[in-house]
């Protein structure tokens, strides 16, 4: 059925709020913790910490989005991340240079992803089983590699910078009597400009072919919303240490994945085979190859995530990575990836990761014990997805 009149300003605004239920959830979480913590949540220091905490889950969630779009799942990435992080720590111990360490770890992750992808795609073992087996195996490998020491400490300070460091503090900009990290502000301004310009470009493109670009009200709301989001985040970060390398990594990874999904043939093939596997096959998609590619990318991102977590903690431990896969999958679902495949956006999954880590961060801040944290995480997760499912008319039983 066609939708009714949808060019009214108000209905446009309404439409946008419907599509951004996740952001509303995020705002509610922020307000809740700000009050609960007596104003300690929304401080530049804590937000910086929160953003850096989100990083290693965000890159996993980005790659997981692809896995879920093609109706597969990867349960192995928790300990795969932990294991690859430990491999990084080992290599550094052997004085392997940082760039080479990063390269080796990511390629190793990709190779393990290839192995799992091969088992799923070519041999035909379901992904759930294959990656469950992977989770066991990688847990074993992680314990093996950390066994003699228990914890592998990283002494290389430059490596720690990856997840602990910030953009260089070249100059300060003084606004409203506050000193801001200059480079960060400039990057923030560029980001806003890119968002608005690409939005306008897309709109013009649609108009050119007489396609409905949606209401102007919706468009303005959307642009204002994203700009405000970027501006407030950047201002918060820039009043502390500035934008961290973690942010740069996450933005770069998200941008690359977004580009591949939306602008290239492989992206189309991923959405197509997720939406209808048989139709994709008969349309000439090499579905096995796409599947293997998606698992390779998942493995590679587990490698990157492993590097980030080892760098952040300054060490590798035998339990690192436990539960990461669940956080990443939850992030995707909060971000609106369809549980029946075919639908999903990487940017939304990153925001989903941010929602989850906000919870973890906030609960830690107000001193809630770990048992209650899991309990609350579960409840908030189900509420967030329930809102999303209802507002998109994507109920499990139709």
């Amino acid at each position, binding site marked *: 059925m*066609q939708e009714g009149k949808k060019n009214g300003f108000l209905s446009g605004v309404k439409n946008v709020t419907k599509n951004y239920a996740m952001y509303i959830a995020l705002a509610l979480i922020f307000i809740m913790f700000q009050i609960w913590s007596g104003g300690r949540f929304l401080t530049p220091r804590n937000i910086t910490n929160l953003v850096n905490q989100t990083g290693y889950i965000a890159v996993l969630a980005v790659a997981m989005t692809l896995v879920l779009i093609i109706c597969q799942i990867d349960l192995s990435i928790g300990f795969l991340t932990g294991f690859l992080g430990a491999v990084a720590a080992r290599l550094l111990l052997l004085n392997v240079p940082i760039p080479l360490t990063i390269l080796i770890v990511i390629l190793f992750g990709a190779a393990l992803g290839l192995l799992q992808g091969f088992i799923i795609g070519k041999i035909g073992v379901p992904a759930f089983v294959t990656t469950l087996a992977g989770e066991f195996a990688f847990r074993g490998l992680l314990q093996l590699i950390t066994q003699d020491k228990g914890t592998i400490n990283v002494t290389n300070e430059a490596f720690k910078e990856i997840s602990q460091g910030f953009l260089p503090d070249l100059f300060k900009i003084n606004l409203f009597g506050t000193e801001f990290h200059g480079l960060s502000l400039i990057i923030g301004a560029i980001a806003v400009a890119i968002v608005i310009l690409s939005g306008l470009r897309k709109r013009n493109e649609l108009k*050119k*072919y007489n396609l*409905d670009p949606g209401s102007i009200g919706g468009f303005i709301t959307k642009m204002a919303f994203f700009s405000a989001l970027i501006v407030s985040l950047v201002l918060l970060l820039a009043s502390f240490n500035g934008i961290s390398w973690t942010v740069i990594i996450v933005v770069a990874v998200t941008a690359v994945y977004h580009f591949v999904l939306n*602008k290239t043939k492989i992206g189309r093939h991923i959405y197509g085979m997720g939406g*209808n596997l*048989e*139709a994709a096959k*008969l349309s000439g998609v*090499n579905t096995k190859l796409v599947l293997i590619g998606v698992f390779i990318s998942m493995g590679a991102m587990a490698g990157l995530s492993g590097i980030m977590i080892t760098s952040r903690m300054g060490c590798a431990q035998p339990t690192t990575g436990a539960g990461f896969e669940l956080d990443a999958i939850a992030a995707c679902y909060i971000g609106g990836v369809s549980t029946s495949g075919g639908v999903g956006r990487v940017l939304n999954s990153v925001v989903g990761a941010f929602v989850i880590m906000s919870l973890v961060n906030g609960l830690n801040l107000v001193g809630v014990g770990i048992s209650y944290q899991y309990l609350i995480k579960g409840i908030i997760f189900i509420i967030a997805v329930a809102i999303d499912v209802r507002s998109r008319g994507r109920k499990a039983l139709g």
Partner: protein
Amino acid sequence: MSEYILEMRGITKTFPGVKALDNVNFSVRPGEIHCLVGENGAGKSTLMKVLSGIHEYGTYEGDIILDGEVMKFHNIRGSEKAGIAIINQELALIPELSVAENIFFGREILKNKLMDWNETNARAVKYLNMVRLNVNPQLPVKELRVGSQQLVEIAKALSKDARLLILDEPTSSLNEEDSENLLNLLRELKEKGVTIIMISHRLKEVVEIGDTVTVLRDGTTVCSMDRSEVTEQKIIKNMVGREIGSIYPKRSESHEIGDVRFEVEHWSARDVKRNREMVKDVSFYVRKGEIIGFAGLMGAGRTELALSLFGNTPGYKITSGEIRLEGETVRFKSPKAAIEKGVAYATEDRKRNGLVLLQDVKFNTTFANLNRLIRGGIINESKENNEATKLKDDIKIKTPSIHQAARNLSGGNQQKTVLAKWIFATPKVLILDEPTRGIDVGSKHEIYTLMNKMVEEGMSIIMISSELLEIIGMSDRIYVMHEGRITGELSGKEATEEGIMRLATNTEEN
């Protein structure tokens, strides 16, 4: 008691932005077979959904009067209680469960709160006998042919003591023989006092079986005709609001058929799992600019032949044969390889494996040939919007924009989107498997016109169809298959329905 068992008065049903039904009046006499016809999107299915409570009371205007009483159905259970049973085009059986379990699904027969299997099976047999289906009630439904599954659905409806049976395109997926059986069964049920409403696109059977024929167009009742006044031409005229001289358009006089382009020799394929030869020693050819038809009954091996040629052979093994494409011997390992060489296959089941329904018309149109849009590894979206819009306008896909999701289109427009995909992919040889199944006369005509245009531009089309008139009307040459073998080749001009049927059933002329 009034003259009618059922009256639907002034039914109006509005979806956001669309009036699907506009003041429809529909009256059914007790014990008749009432056929409901109309183009796709005319509102037939919506009307039946209102009747069966799927669109619940309060979401529509107007009254449903059953036996003189106004009914207020809130769900399908409500209408079932009143004796109405609906059998949808897509069957609602659970393939893994047995025939008996399916018949009593949701109304399990219990003894001491546990399943009473003996009674379940015994009662199932009773209803199976009523529909003249002689199968073991303990057999899983998935083992039955589509035609038999349909009968199980009817048995299920009868077991609910349905007085009013609604069938939505019951014969669309059946072959001629099964269709004939079904129609006979409906006549028998009528004799037993069951009132039947049947939606159908097969006008021939409508004329044959309908006591009354009601035509819907654009959400309104156009007319209701008695058996005595019904003809196919009259129905078509009322459905489309214009006369179609012939539903099969003529190709331009100057069109010439070229050299042999695609040739298959001694092709055999075996179903490894069932250890059965599905395609046996098949040889045929198609020339440039030619349409050849493959006729035959369901299960004659036509789809299996097409898929095995096309490189999509899960579970099949090709045991012999050779394909020559423009003189070059080829063998396709995958659909991808076939498409790259210029051989394409458009499926018989557009929803299951033809379209990505979640995605929009544009996505589906360009999906099989993205290479055409790629520059430097990136999809050129301007070009994509441009070409998809042009194609949509050319072949008249009725949709407000190419950004409409395919699932929101009517069957005919979905089928046109499938064709748009293959036109965009520009294959040399296109296999069309049941290209007009379940779509209305107007859309059929447009699709035939499109096929003619495609061969005029030099494409070769292999059409598999179970509709004999379509095969005869569209094909230059016709191959008939029976149990995996080609039993005859006819020219399109001299073929008759009887002639094809004889070959398809492999019976001697008498």
